[in-house]
């Protein structure tokens, strides 16, 4: 273990914590008129942290400290980059939206910060309790964010639902953790792995299932997915975006560590993998099928993101460097694709005052850029070349086929082509409907930047994925020795 300085390694986390508090303070202190400045401030500070983290990714040292409580490997840093990027894009795209909330603008951003911090801790945690703390930090911030439109009944309903279900699920997760602790006497991944070894008591089964359920809830894995659509629909759109992208990615970061380091003992893997295969297949099928008849864009994206979780699971099933690499790669491009879609959704619903798909009619005329970005993002989610989604799926499914699961690949590809059906029906509305009488929707400023940026990234990675692929590969390598 190389020697290192905690300060340097933990800088991002510390910075985020500080920022959260500062923003909170500023939000309270400065007069409402001056709160316009909050968004740029947040954005730039996030950008700074992101920059540092990127640097850290390439030049940081692999470290394991506080008695293995906390890990600092490229895997963790990769995910931190991902969270920060997501947060940044959310903040950028949410500018206009948040303008409408007269009060509590400061809290909004600081809550985003705390949530991000929670995710970063999850990614870095080398031990279950730490992971749990991060998870709760993230989740509780999200409870508030989801219910942020305090005078919108739907928003608060979503909040309540998320709270109850989230709390229940974390309780179950905790129960699992306690059992694991009871079985192995430790909460550190590595020691648990050695502790569990090959002996499989019903208790260890129970523990595993509870852990799986707790994390499966966060990544909205069927059958633990039921909460997602409601919450996504009710929450403020930027929050939905953040929820769909970052919290899922964070849960995946944990799942990969837990699954690959801990659950993956020989005697276990046979059943475990079959089970995961079945669940992943169910996730892809249900997610894509139920998305078809949706009429609300946010709900549609919710189901699509459930399906995406299914694709990501495939990478975990592969149980190989390639698989993890696939997950990392896909998670990253998933950020940009989804952010593009949500940025458009946010913008339109802000101008239109509704999330119905039919209100996108004639968007191609009313706001060509938005329409194009939406199309590109959706097609990337569907995995149509030359957009990034295709390469991502290719990594995932080639990995899983390499590990010998072909059925899941069939299901995955066929379902992603089915998904094209409902993505295209959105595209159809945007391009075919003339949308008479509906006003043009100008796009500018940070939102425009977000849209163009996400689209360009999606396209660029799709055409020339090598850099990102190398990053993902490095991260995957760092995880699996």
């Amino acid at each position, binding site marked *: 273990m190389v020697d290192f300085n905690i300060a340097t390694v933990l800088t991002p986390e510390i910075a985020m914590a500080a920022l959260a508090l500062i923003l909170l303070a500023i939000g309270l202190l400065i007069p409402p008129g001056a709160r316009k400045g909050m968004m740029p401030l947040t954005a730039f500070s996030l950008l700074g942290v992101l920059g540092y983290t990127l640097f850290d990714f390439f030049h940081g040292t692999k470290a394991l400290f506080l008695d293995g409580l906390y890990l600092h490997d490229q895997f963790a840093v990769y995910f931190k980059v991902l969270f920060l990027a997501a947060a940044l894009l959310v903040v950028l795209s949410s500018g206009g939206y948040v303008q409408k909330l007269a009060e509590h603008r400061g809290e909004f951003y600081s809550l985003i910060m705390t949530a991000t911090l929670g995710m970063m801790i999850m990614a870095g945690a080398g031990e279950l309790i730490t992971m749990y703390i991060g998870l709760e930090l993230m989740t*509780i911030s999200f409870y508030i964010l989801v219910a942020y439109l305090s005078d919108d009944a739907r928003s*608060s309903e979503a909040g309540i639902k998320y709270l*109850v279900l989230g709390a229940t699920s974390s309780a179950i997760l905790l*129960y699992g953790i306690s*059992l694991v602790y009871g079985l192995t006497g430790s909460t550190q991944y590595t020691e648990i792995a050695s502790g569990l070894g090959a002996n499989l008591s019903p208790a260890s089964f129970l523990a595993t299932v509870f852990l799986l359920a707790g994390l499966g809830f966060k990544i909205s894995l069927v059958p633990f997915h039921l909460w997602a*659509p409601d919450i996504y629909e009710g929450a403020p759109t930027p929050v939905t975006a953040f929820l769909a992208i970052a919290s899922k990615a964070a849960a995946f970061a944990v799942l990969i560590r837990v699954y690959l380091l801990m659950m993956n003992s020989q005697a276990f893997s046979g059943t475990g993998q079959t089970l995961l295969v079945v669940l992943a297949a169910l996730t892809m099928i249900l997610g894509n099928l139920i998305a078809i008849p949706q009429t609300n864009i946010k709900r549609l994206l919710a189901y699509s993101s459930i399906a995406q979780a299914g694709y990501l699971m495939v990478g975990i099933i592969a149980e190989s460097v390639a698989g993890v690499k696939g997950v990392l790669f896909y998670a990253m491009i998933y950020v940009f694709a989804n952010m593009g879609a949500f940025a458009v959704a946010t913008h339109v619903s802000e101008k239109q005052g509704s999330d119905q798909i039919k209100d996108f009619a004639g968007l191609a005329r009313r706001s060509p850029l938005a329409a194009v970005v939406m199309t590109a993002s959706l097609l990337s989610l569907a995995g149509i070349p030359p957009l990034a989604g295709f390469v991502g799926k290719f990594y995932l499914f080639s990995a899983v086929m390499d590990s010998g699961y072909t059925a899941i690949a069939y299901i995955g590809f066929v379902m992603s082509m089915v998904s094209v059906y409902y993505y295209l029906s959105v595209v159809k509305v945007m391009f075919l409907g003339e949308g008479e009488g509906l006003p043009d929707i100008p796009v500018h400023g940070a939102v425009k930047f977000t849209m163009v940026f996400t689209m360009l990234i999606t396209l660029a990675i799709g055409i020339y994925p090598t850099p990102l692929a190398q990053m993902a590969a490095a991260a995957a390598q760092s995880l699996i020795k």
Partner: protein
Amino acid sequence: MNLSNLSVGLSTYLLVGAMLFSIGLYGVFAKRNIIAILMSIELMLNAVNINFVAFNRFVWNQKSGTNYILTGHVAALFVIVVAAAEVAVGLALVITIYRNRQSTNVDEFNWLKW
């Protein structure tokens, strides 16, 4: 007579924990009042705490040097803190939704569906 028969062992604690957990779960399923549901959740979390402490006390109470390893106890403390935060937020949300819907009956919170 042997007092050790009367001693309350790990299994007892685990049983209590499990019962608490199940009661809490039942509450979450069955209660109609949102406040009650929050309380049930508290029960579940506390069940977890009992597990932690019991495990630490009965199974993994080794020492390293002179001091005990208190992972379980610490975990319990963390959980308590988190639970407190959760409930705080929860109650705040209850107030909000009550303002919006004039009700705390979860059956009525079904605007978002399908």
